[in-house]
């Protein structure tokens, strides 16, 4: 959607041409991606995404605290909507930060810039899950869960203990898996990789002329791209050379999807597209950049879809095997991933694969009456099939 370029210096090589979508821009110059995600200007690194790393670390602490039954509702909520200087986290740097998780949930420019009312509804649902964990699940921590009342259930064979609400839902899972979509995916796909952000104001002009941000080594466009990168790889030990499994969120679940032979190569496709797209920005080749955006959108959107179907099917099988705790755990993950589907992005459109109304209907179906206690295999298969067919993979591929 890039349209206007003003003020190109005529003495420099003209890297721009008017092209329709299917034309390859600038065929004479080949952009090569570097081996790793390292970019420099005059010897200084131009890559920075410390804000993303901060928010991932905050989300990690929130996720752990949701399983600490000594926490109050207010303490949990403070981890979600931290205020600068409040002592909410174990990490002093997080406490000093003015950032928080909540205000970047359902907050992308493309999907929520003019949908703040919906954004508030989505945040409020998460607020209510967090509060319910403290007010309903924690008081029943040692009770055995039954249909309609919260408590614990142990997986078969001396397995893990799961803490669920009256509908069998692990609220901590619902929150954590919703963040994969609502925070990481939404910010990445629908904000930082969007032309509305990458090309805002004079970004193209400034990038064309290597005009960096005040006091920084990067152009605004480079930085926006890196911030998208940071939501996926920001918690890696060496983010330039990601090994995956570095958080409990998108990074780890991209890895899990990639580990499924049916989806092998997904992780490499994303990493390569990030590198090439970033190199394309350096080379001022915005068509090539946007081709990489499409690749990233397609592959990252696949993560919540594959995992949702995977866990719905696992829930069905565990239920049939009589392992209620394991089934509920799987369905809780599934519910969070389903909620995350509203933050995906169909490449070359302005739409997610599933709307808020659609994922809400799925969740309402799963949680109707006594929720997971009486959900049927037919329902689980039906939702699995709808999701899988929208993304064009067979349900069995996600097993």
């Amino acid at each position, binding site marked *: *959607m*890039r*349209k*206007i*370029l*003003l*003020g*190109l*210096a*005529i*003495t420099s090589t003209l890297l*721009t*041409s*008017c*092209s*329709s*979508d299917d034309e390859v821009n600038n065929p004479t110059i080949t952009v090569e991606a570097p081996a790793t995600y390292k970019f420099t200007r005059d010897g200084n690194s131009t890559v920075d*995404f*410390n*804000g*993303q790393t*901060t*928010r991932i670390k905050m989300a990690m602490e929130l996720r752990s605290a949701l399983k600490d039954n000594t926490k109050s509702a207010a303490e949990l909520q403070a981890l979600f*909507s931290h*205020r600068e200087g409040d002592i909410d986290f174990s990490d002093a740097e997080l406490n000093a930060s003015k*950032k*928080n998780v*909540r*205000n970047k949930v359902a907050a992308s420019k493309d999907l929520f*810039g*003019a*949908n*703040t*009312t919906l954004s*508030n*509804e989505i945040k409020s649902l998460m607020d209510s899950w967090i509060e319910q964990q403290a007010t309903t699940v924690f008081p029943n921590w040692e009770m055995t869960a039954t249909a309609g009342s919260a408590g614990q259930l142990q997986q078969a064979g001396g397995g893990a203990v799961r803490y669920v609400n009256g509908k069998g839902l692990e609220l901590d899972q619902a929150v954590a898996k919703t963040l994969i979509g609502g925070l990481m995916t939404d910010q990445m796909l629908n904000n930082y990789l969007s032309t*509305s952000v990458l090309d*805002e*104001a*004079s*970004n193209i*002009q400034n990038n064309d*002329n290597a*005009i960096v941000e005040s006091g920084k080594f990067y152009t*605004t466009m480079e*930085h*926006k791209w890196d*911030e998208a990168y*940071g939501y996926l790889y920001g918690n890696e030990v060496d983010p330039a050379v990601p090994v995956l499994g570095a958080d409990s969120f998108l990074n780890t679940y991209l890895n899990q999807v990639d580990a499924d032979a049916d989806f092998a190569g997904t992780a490499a496709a994303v990493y390569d597209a990030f590198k090439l797209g970033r190199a394309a920005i350096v080379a001022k080749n915005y068509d090539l950049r946007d081709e990489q955006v499409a690749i990233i959108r397609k592959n990252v959107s696949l993560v919540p879809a594959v995992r949702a179907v995977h866990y719905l099917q696992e829930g069905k099988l565990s239920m049939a095997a009589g392992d209620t705790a394991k089934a509920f755990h799987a369905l809780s993950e599934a519910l969070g991933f389903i909620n995350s589907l509203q933050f995906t992005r169909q490449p070359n459109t302005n739409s997610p694969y599933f709307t808020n109304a659609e994922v809400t209907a799925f969740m309402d179906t799963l949680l109707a009456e006594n929720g997971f206690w009486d959900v049927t295999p037919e329902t689980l298969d039906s939702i699995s099939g709808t999701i899988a067919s929208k993304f064009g993979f067979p349900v069995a591929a996600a097993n």
Partner: protein
Amino acid sequence: MLKKIALVFSLALIVACSSSDDSSQGGTTDTFDRSALLKNLADNIIIPAYQDFGIKLTNLKGSINAFVATPNQNTLDAARKTWLTAYSAWQHLEMYNIGKAEALNQYYYFMNIYPVTVSDIENGVLTGAFDLNTPSYHDAQGFPALDYLLYGLAADDAGIIAKFSTDKNAQGYKDYLTAVINQMDKLTKDVITDWTTVYRDQFVNSSQNTATSSLNKFVNDYIFYYEKGLRANKIGIPAGVFSSTPLPNKVEGYYNQKVSKALSLEALNAVQNVFNGKSFNGSATGASFKTYLDYLETNKEGEKLSMLINNQFDLARTKIQALDSNFSAQINADNSKMTAAYDALQRAVVYLKVDMVQAFNISVDYIDADGD
């Protein structure tokens, strides 16, 4: 200010690339008469609006002077009435941050920054040591300070009148109130004089397309005002769009408690009238953003862009009309109606800030700072 100076290159080349879903004019320089648009803006809209405001501000000054001389219910009522009349007229001017208004380091900084910092006002009253020309007093003067002084000083009218008569700091209150209206009066006269003597011709004659040409600057000021002054300040900020929780004390006219909606609607009317080139005094329309877009035959999604923009303004108006006359009360009762109004306003931002400026071949010279 978020404004960045756009760079002008000695040898500028304008290249427009259009993707397949875009039908704005590419490549060529259009032949629309920008000067006619600037003339209509200056002569039929901006200058008449300033002159109207000048009269209303003079009335406000007179009634405040009468209140200061004789603080009683009658003079208080009169001051409040003229305050609201002038405040409504102000809604037509805040977007014109160009020429003298800009040169004053933002005339509107001295006229309508809210919420006020009450402690600065009270400290000024107490000590007499205040300088309304310093940036730290931007949020302790103008219409919001008058709002506080005429409505917020005490729980009831008798208490407010007492602050200006029997209170031990009565003279301090009188002095502060007088200083505020004198400052507004002086700066307004400066701006009006500039428009009616030298600036009008400068404005109209600067009809090229460079970063510092009149229309380029005016379009930027217009969109910036729509985004910040109207959408964010009046609705978005108090509704909590940019914060963790709603901030109902940040509405315009907070102490009056009745006019935040009326002022917002007035501002939206002003924005739409400028878009359509509607004369300030009357219903005639002239060259405008609308006629420029129509001249360029700018379409989006198969519709005329000018129509989409007007429809969106109309929709936003409907959403604002559905709100409580006091936005604070609306936020506390049902904030989702406030965010719905914000969303309706926001949808026009894309039309203006992306589609319209592309059609006009104008660069946006400011950016929202909302990253990590």
